[in-house]
């Protein structure tokens, strides 16, 4: 647009403020008036307003971290019958999302909890769902209903919960300055919910303020009943037994009962303790055994070790820890500290003392008993809890549980990481950081490439281009890791991978060849093997598949002789091996290798990583390359579900695109269309430097054409071809072919000439790889001179090697269909029939089922036309009827081909 500087904007801004407040109708006259007195400014205003009309730039609409791939966004992901809308919370257990039902059966929104369990296995999945359906039967007005529990197709366990809009009970009470009696009243509703659940033998195990809400209508709702147990059960057991029972427990240290912390059996009395802590905090604003600001470990130790401070003491000024907040706390309860002390002294002290007993057997045994005592307090009757219960010291308990106490300390240490609670103590954090940095400097195993890059970017806030960053990083590695060969190799490998990604195999190979020498002098077999396998990747990109195969074979051989090889090393070698097989034109061998790697990842429950996605995707790719499209589709479908784990949008788009390509190959055009639409929309906002963007556009164009949306198809092909280089030669040649086909159909000579020239130009450069496309172009254009079309087409197909099996990896079907169509058009019905029948058989082989492929439908339609031309009425009727179901499935019921088959069938008399 017109250049804009600070001064010009200062003139412009007040005008923008003005025009933005105007209605659409009022803008025209306003602009006219402005044009009269300041035409240049009016032009600028118009230009700026026009930017709101174009496509919205997604990068400015959402959330930067998610957009830039720093954080994956799950919005729009499907979990069973639900679609995720937006995140509403993040906790130790996982994230919580607002979601809606996607089958239109239930209007309202639900909350979906995605559990941080990793993917669960089939056995765990069954138990999880079973257990979940038991909990779903828990029906009580004060319990937020668990609507459903499931595991997504990708293996992500989730819970569907009633969505409660409201406030946390403690915040609700504070905001309204509820007095102690009102607070106890609300708390009694919590006890009702707990009693109902206990009657159903469900223990909550994680009662805390954030789990108790007051809904908008004032109803108290207890959340997450029984979910803690569900999580423990769903947690996959590690084969090596490193996951201790205690650290696997889901609970909140500040509210956990001693027995929950020490790992002893939990019971209904465990919930009573947590309820006691909660009531204590509600009434006093303080925690019974600590300030609550400590680390989780300290909270847990205090729960076991420290006797609770008497409630009436806790609200007395000067009696408890600094800072003294008793005045403020009392004010939040519409009272003074004096008044609170008077209210709590005696009965309430005793009630809470009993609820907070260290020994579960000495607590209230039921929620009803707890509630009874509170009701008695409210109605000024004597409570059952005795004063002596408060003074009881719990030394005996601690002695008895010394072993458990130690376990707790260990558990606490691991919980700091597990619960994600930040360790606040500064010096501890600093020590940890220093240690981590030191470790990063020293240990090759933990050398982080990111660390190097961050350090470079640090230097004086200077901006570097990507290439500069890369080159400087490489220099830094050579310089700083001179004395650390292992670290240097590791970083060299990472840099080489980037060079490869930037299509610079020469630089990658150079780096790796140097590393090879270092590794060999180091004498470490694993590094030697690793470097060779990485070098293979560079060699493949330079076009030497055979050398790559040899390198991988050597590397693999070295690893085979070693014990305790890092699993990642083996996998990386095999992944490159698979690529080498693919490059060498052996897709079956590649598929086998990729499948083995995927299986290893799966066996290690390592399925959330991108390596797994990558291995599985390559498996799909190799299967497709081997014309095992049905198998490729199966793997591809799984990848679509897993794609939500991808950390950047283009990985996700690529995976879904691959599934769309596979379904396209199987004649499932409607399905392909359905999957492509959303990712085309997504891609508008995603970083478009990737070559995937034009490929996606072409694939979309191709399916739009199949769906009969020719004009849109042309639009997208043009967009794709606008970046011909990014499209890659294979996709580019196909795009030109599609464009030429459309042009021929629409009688656009100019476009046809241009695009067929494109096919020829790129096709020649690709040599044999473009034979199918060149062949198809000829089939489309063979003239029907002197009535010898049939003979010419036969010659074309012979040249392509029709008799020699299936040389074109699925493209053969296209040839047969084009041949049949052209012969039918030209009246060569007998020849057409032969090709159509072969095409139908071939399409059936390459489809999920005979009725699920639009390609089968197309072949049957040509078969019907040919039979009709040959006056074989019953044959024609049969074929036209048989075409109906596959056409409907493949293209969708509204497609013109469906109508065409029907009218053909009806036009044939008996």
């Amino acid at each position: 647009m017109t250049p804009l500087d600070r001064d010009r904007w200062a003139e412009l801004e007040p005008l923008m403020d003005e025009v933005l407040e105007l209605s659409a109708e009022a803008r025209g006259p306003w602009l006219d008036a402005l044009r009269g007195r300041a035409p240049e400014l009016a032009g600028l205003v118009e230009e700026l307003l026009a930017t709101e009309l174009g496509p919205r730039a997604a990068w400015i609409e959402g959330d930067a971290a998610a957009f830039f791939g720093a954080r994956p966004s799950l919005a729009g992901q499907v979990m069973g019958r639900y679609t995720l809308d937006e995140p509403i919370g993040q906790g130790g257990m996982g994230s919580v999302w607002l979601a809606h039902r996607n089958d239109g059966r239930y209007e309202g929104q639900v909350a979906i909890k995605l559990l941080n369990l990793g993917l669960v296995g089939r056995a765990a999945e069954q138990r999880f769902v079973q257990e979940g359906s038991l909990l779903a039967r828990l029906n009580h007005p004060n319990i937020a209903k668990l609507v459903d529990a499931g595991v997504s197709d990708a293996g992500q366990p989730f819970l569907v919960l009633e969505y409660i809009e409201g406030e946390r009970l403690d915040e609700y009470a504070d905001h309204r300055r509820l007095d102690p009696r009102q607070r106890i009243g609300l708390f009694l509703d919590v006890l009702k919910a707990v009693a109902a659940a206990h009657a159903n033998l469900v223990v909550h195990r994680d009662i805390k303020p954030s789990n108790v809400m007051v809904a908008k209508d004032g109803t108290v709702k207890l959340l997450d009943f029984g979910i803690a147990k569900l999580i423990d059960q769903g947690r996959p057991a590690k084969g090596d037994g490193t996951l201790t029972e205690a650290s696997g427990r889901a609970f909140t240290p500040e509210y956990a009962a001693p027995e929950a912390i020490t790992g002893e059996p939990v019971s209904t009395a465990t919930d009573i303790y947590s309820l006691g802590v909660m009531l204590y905090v509600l009434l006093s604003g303080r925690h019974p055994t600590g300030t609550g600001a400590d680390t989780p470990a300290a909270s847990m130790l205090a729960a076991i070790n420290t006797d609770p401070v008497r409630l009436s003491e806790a609200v007395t000024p000067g009696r408890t820890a600094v800072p003294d907040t008793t005045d403020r706390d009392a004010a939040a309860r519409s009272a003074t500290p004096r008044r609170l002390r008077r209210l709590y002294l005696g009965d309430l002290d005793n009630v809470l003392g009993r609820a907070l007993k260290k020994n579960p057997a000495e607590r209230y045994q039921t929620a009803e008993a707890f509630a009874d005592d509170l009701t008695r307090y409210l109605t000024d009757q004597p409570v059952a809890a005795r004063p002596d219960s408060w003074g009881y010291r719990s030394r005996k308990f601690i002695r008895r549980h010394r072993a458990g106490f130690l376990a707790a300390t260990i558990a606490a240490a691991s919980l700091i990481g597990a619960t994600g609670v930040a360790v606040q103590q500064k010096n501890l954090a600093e020590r940890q950081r220093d240690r981590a940095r030191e470790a990063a400097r020293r240990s090759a195993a933990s050398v982080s490439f990111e660390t190097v890059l961050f350090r470079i970017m640090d230097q004086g806030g200077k901006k570097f281009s990507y290439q500069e960053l890369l080159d400087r990083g490489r220099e830094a590695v050579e310089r700083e890791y001179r004395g650390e060969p292992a670290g240097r190799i590791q970083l060299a490998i990472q840099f080489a991978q980037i060079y490869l990604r930037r299509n610079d195999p020469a630089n990658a190979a150079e780096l790796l060849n140097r590393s090879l020498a270092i590794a060999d002098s180091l004498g470490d077999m694993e590094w030697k093997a690793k470097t060779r396998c990485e070098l293979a990747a560079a060699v493949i990109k330079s076009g030497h598949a055979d050398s790559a195969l040899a390198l991988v074979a050597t590397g693999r051989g070295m690893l085979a002789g070693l014990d305790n090889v890092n699993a990642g090393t083996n996998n990386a070698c095999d992944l490159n091996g698979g690529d080498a097989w693919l490059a060498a034109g052996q897709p079956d061998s590649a598929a086998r290798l990729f499948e083995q790697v995927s299986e290893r990842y799966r066996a290690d429950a390592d399925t959330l990583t991108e390596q797994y996605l990558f291995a599985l995707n390559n498996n799909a790719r190799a299967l497709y390359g081997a014309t095992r499209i049905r198998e490729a589709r199966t793997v591809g479908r799984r990848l679509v579900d897993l794609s939500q784990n991808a950390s950047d949008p283009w990985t996700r788009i690529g995976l879904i695109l691959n599934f769309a390509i596979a379904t396209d190959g199987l004649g499932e055009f409607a399905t392909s269309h359905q999957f492509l639409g959303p990712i085309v929309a997504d891609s508008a906002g995603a970083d478009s430097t990737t070559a995937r963007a034009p490929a996606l556009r072409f694939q979309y164009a191709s399916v739009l054409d199949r769906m009969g949306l020719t004009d849109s198809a042309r639009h997208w092909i043009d967009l794709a071809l606008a970046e011909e280089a990014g499209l890659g030669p294979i996709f580019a040649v196909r795009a030109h072919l599609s464009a030429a086909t459309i042009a021929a159909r629409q009688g656009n000579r100019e476009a046809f000439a241009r695009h067929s020239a494109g096919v020829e130009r790129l096709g020649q450069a690709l040599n044999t790889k473009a034979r199918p496309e060149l062949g198809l172009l000829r089939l489309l254009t063979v003239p029907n001179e002197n009535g010898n079309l049939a003979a010419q087409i036969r010659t074309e197909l012979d040249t392509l090697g029709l008799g020699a099996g299936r040389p074109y990896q699925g493209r053969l079907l296209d040839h047969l269909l084009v041949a049949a169509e052209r012969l039918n058009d030209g009246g060569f019905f007998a020849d057409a029939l032969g090709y159509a029948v072969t095409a139908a058989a071939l399409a059936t082989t390459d489809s999920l089922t005979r009725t699920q492929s639009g390609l089968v439908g197309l072949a049957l339609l040509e078969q019907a036309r040919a039979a009709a031309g040959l006056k074989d009425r019953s044959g024609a009727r049969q074929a036209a009827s048989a075409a109906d179901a596959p056409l409907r499935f493949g293209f969708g019921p509204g497609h013109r081909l469906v109508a065409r088959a029907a009218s053909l069938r009806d036009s044939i008399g008996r």
Partner: protein
Amino acid sequence: MTSLATLFDRSDAGNAQASHQLFAALYDELRQVAERQLRRSDGRLTLGATTLLHETYLAISEREAAAFPDRARFIGYAAKAMRGLIIDYARARRATKRGGEFEITLIGDHEPAAPSGAADQLELVVEGLTRLGEVDPKLADLVDLHFFCGFSFVEIADLRGVSERTIQRDWRKARMLLKGLLA
């Protein structure tokens, strides 16, 4: 070393060098908190930017105690550092994306495609924001607060003591200017 509180004061008084130092210091603080988070969460930044900012504020204010400025002033400066952090993170992350290994290769495409000639969108964004900052620093700050730090319009209106409607209008202006400047 100069304390952060001093840097805030000097920076408020228009000392450019102090502003620069302050930016660097806040960037470093944010990064430390983010890196801790990264280590905890298997390499994925799961914390929202708002939380990150808040955690950082708590850490600094605890350390610097009473001398430390209020939250609103802190956020005003830290938002820009947050933009820097997220963009650097995205750059590093993209660089770290290991070689061909994680790139999802398309089915049926055995020929490596040449790198696309399309402009690098991330760098384009960086460029656009720099230019927006030159034309109207207030609008650039708004982008930092809303897009990079995740503050809602209501929160930003509170911070700036203006109406939510004004912020919404500013947001539209920022968006238009960015698009215009990059067109």
